[in-house]
C-alpha cells in the first residue's frame, strides 16, 4: 500500500456521504493527491479497492481533471494564472520573472526537486491579480518584491 492508514480512513469516511459509492471517486483522488502530490495507476487500484468500484472508473474520472497529475512534481508546485485578468496585469512577465529566479522554464522542476513551475487557467483571483497558487494556497496582488520574499521563505522552510 502506498496510501497511508490516515488517507485510507479519510477515503472510507467519504463513501457513506453519498447515495452511490462512485461519488467518492473525486474526494478519494483529492485525498490521495494531498498525501502524495500525484495519483498514478497504482493509486487508482488502491482507491478502487477501498471504495469498491472498478479500476477503470477511477482512471476514467482521474484523467479528465487537471488536479491529479500522474507523476510527482516539486515539493512546491507553483501555478501561475495566465488568464485574461491576470495577463492584463503582467502574468506573462510574472512567469518570466519566476523562470529567471528559479532557473527553469515553465513546465520544469528545479534540479533539487523543490519547485515546479506551471501556468494554469483562471483561479478566481481576478480582482487581486496577478496571482499564483503554491500547493494549496493562493498568493495574490503579486509584485517582484513579494515573489522574492515568498521564494526565500519557502527555501528557508524546505
Amino acid at each position: 500500500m502506498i496510501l497511508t492508514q490516515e488517507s485510507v480512513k479519510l477515503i472510507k469516511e467519504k463513501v457513506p456521504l453519498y447515495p452511490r459509492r462512485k461519488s467518492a471517486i473525486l474526494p478519494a483522488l483529492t485525498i490521495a493527491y494531498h498525501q502524495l502530490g500525484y495519483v498514478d495507476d497504482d493509486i487508482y487500484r488502491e482507491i478502487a479497492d477501498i471504495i469498491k468500484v472498478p479500476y477503470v472508473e477511477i482512471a476514467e474520472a482521474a484523467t479528465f481533471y487537471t488536479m491529479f497529475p500522474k507523476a510527482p512534481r516539486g515539493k512546491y508546485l507553483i501555478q501561475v494564472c495566465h488568464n485574461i485578468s491576470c495577463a492584463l496585469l503582467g502574468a506573462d512577465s510574472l512567469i518570466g520573472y519566476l523562470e529567471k529566479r528559479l532557473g527553469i522554464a515553465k513546465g520544469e522542476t528545479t534540479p533539487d526537486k523543490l519547485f515546479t513551475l506551471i501556468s494554469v487557467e483562471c483561479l478566481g483571483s481576478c480582482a487581486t491579480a496577478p496571482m499564483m497558487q503554491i500547493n494549496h494556497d493562493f498568493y495574490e496582488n503579486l509584485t517582484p518584491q513579494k515573489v522574492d520574499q515568498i521564494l526565500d521563505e519557502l527555501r528557508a522552510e524546505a
Partner: protein
Amino acid sequence: MFYSPVITNAAEAATNDKLHLFKYVEDPEQHKLETYVKHCGYQAWQKVLAGMKPDEVIDEVKRSGLRGRGGAGFPTGMKWSFVPKNSPKPRYLCCNADESEPGTCKDRVLMERDPHGVIEGMAIAAYAIGCHRMFIYIRGEFGHPIRRMEEAVAEAYKGGHLGKNIYGSGYDLDMVVHTGGGAYICGEETALLNSLEGERGMSRIRPPFPAIEGLYACPTIVNNVESLAAVPHIIRHGADWYKKMGTEKSAGTKIFSLSGHVNRPGNYEVELGFPLKKLIYDPAYGAGIKDGKKLKGVIPGGASTPFLTPDMLEKANLDYESLQSVGSMLGSGAVIVFNEDTCIVWTILKLIHFFRHESCGKCTPCREGTGWLEQVIHRIEDGHGRQGDLEMIENVCGNILGRTICPLGDAAVMPIQSAVKHWRDEWVYHIEHGKCQVKPHFPFK
C-alpha cells in the same frame, strides 16, 4: 495570509440597508457561527421551519424576482417550482461553487468570509424542494474557501442548524462539501452533476432537465452560491423589500467582480441597474483606468460575454435587460476592463486558449472548433496570419454557435465575434503587417 485580500464595498454596505450580501464581509469573525448568529444569522431558517410551508417559501422567492447569479439569470423561485411534487424519489440541492469563469471572483469571497450565509440559503432552498441531503460543489483549487466551508458546516451541525430534527421541527437535513478536480465545465449544471456522480465532467443532453432527472436521476436543483446567499435575506425581509431594489425585471443586488486595468479592482455589491460607467470610474468603486490610460473596451459579464466599446458604455447599466440591449450579457457579473494598450488579437488568444483547454470534448463543433480557432488566432498573433483567416474565424464561430449540448461552445464564440466586429481594422492590420498596432505585453511591477 491566505484570506483573500480583495477590495470590497463592505463599508458602504454597512450603512446602506439595501446592500445585504456584503454587510459583514469585512468583519474578521463573520465566518464563525457565533458572529453570524449575532448578526441575525439563521433567523430566516428558523422562521421557515417554524411555520412556512415549502410552497410558501417558493412563492416568496418567486415574488422577490431573484434571478440566478451564476450566469444564465433564470428566475430562482420558478426553477424550484419545477421539482415534481409527487415524485417518490429523493430530491437534491447542489450549490454550484465551481467558480471558474475568467474575471469572476465573487463566490469565493462569500464562502470564505460568510460561509454560514451560504449554508442558510442552501438549507432554505433544500426545504422548499423537499431535499434532505444537499451538496456544495466547490472547485478543488479553492483551498481556503473549502476549509472555511467545512469548518462552517461542522459548526452548523453542532449548533443544531443542520442534522436531525432541526429546531424540533422534525425536518432532517444533511450537507456534504464536495470538491472538484479542476475543470471549468463542471460549472455547467449537468456537467457538475456528472462530476458529482464520479463521472467525467461532461454535459448532459436536456431534456430531461435536472429538476426532473438530475443527480442520480432524481429531481435536483442547482443554484449558484450568490443566488442562494440572497435567499435568507429575502425570507427575513420579505419579497417586497427585495423587489424594490434593482430594476423592474432585474430585482435585488448583485456582486460585480471588477478586474483588469482599473485603479481599484475589487468585488462590489450594487443594486442591479447600476451604471457600468460609474462602476469603472467612480472613486468609490473602480476609480478609473489605471496609469491615466484611455479605455479600449469592457467585457461586462465574464470571459464568455461580448465586448463593449467605450461609446456603448454610456447606455450600459448592470442589469440583464440593459446589457442585452447593447448586445452583451450580465453573465456572472465579471467586469473586465481593457486599456488602450491592449492588443485585441492577444486578448482573444488568451480567451480561446482557455475555452479550447476547458472544452470537455463531447460535442464535435466545440471540441474541434475551439482547437481550430486557437490555431488560426495563434498564427495571426505570431505574425503569420493569412488572407481569409478572418473569414475562417467567422465561419468556424458560426458553426459552433447554437450547435452544442451546453453553452460552453457559445461562450467561446461570443467574445470572438464581438471582437472581430468592433476591432476589425486591428485584426486586418495584424494579418497584413504580421504585428499588432499596440504593445501587447504588460509589465509585472
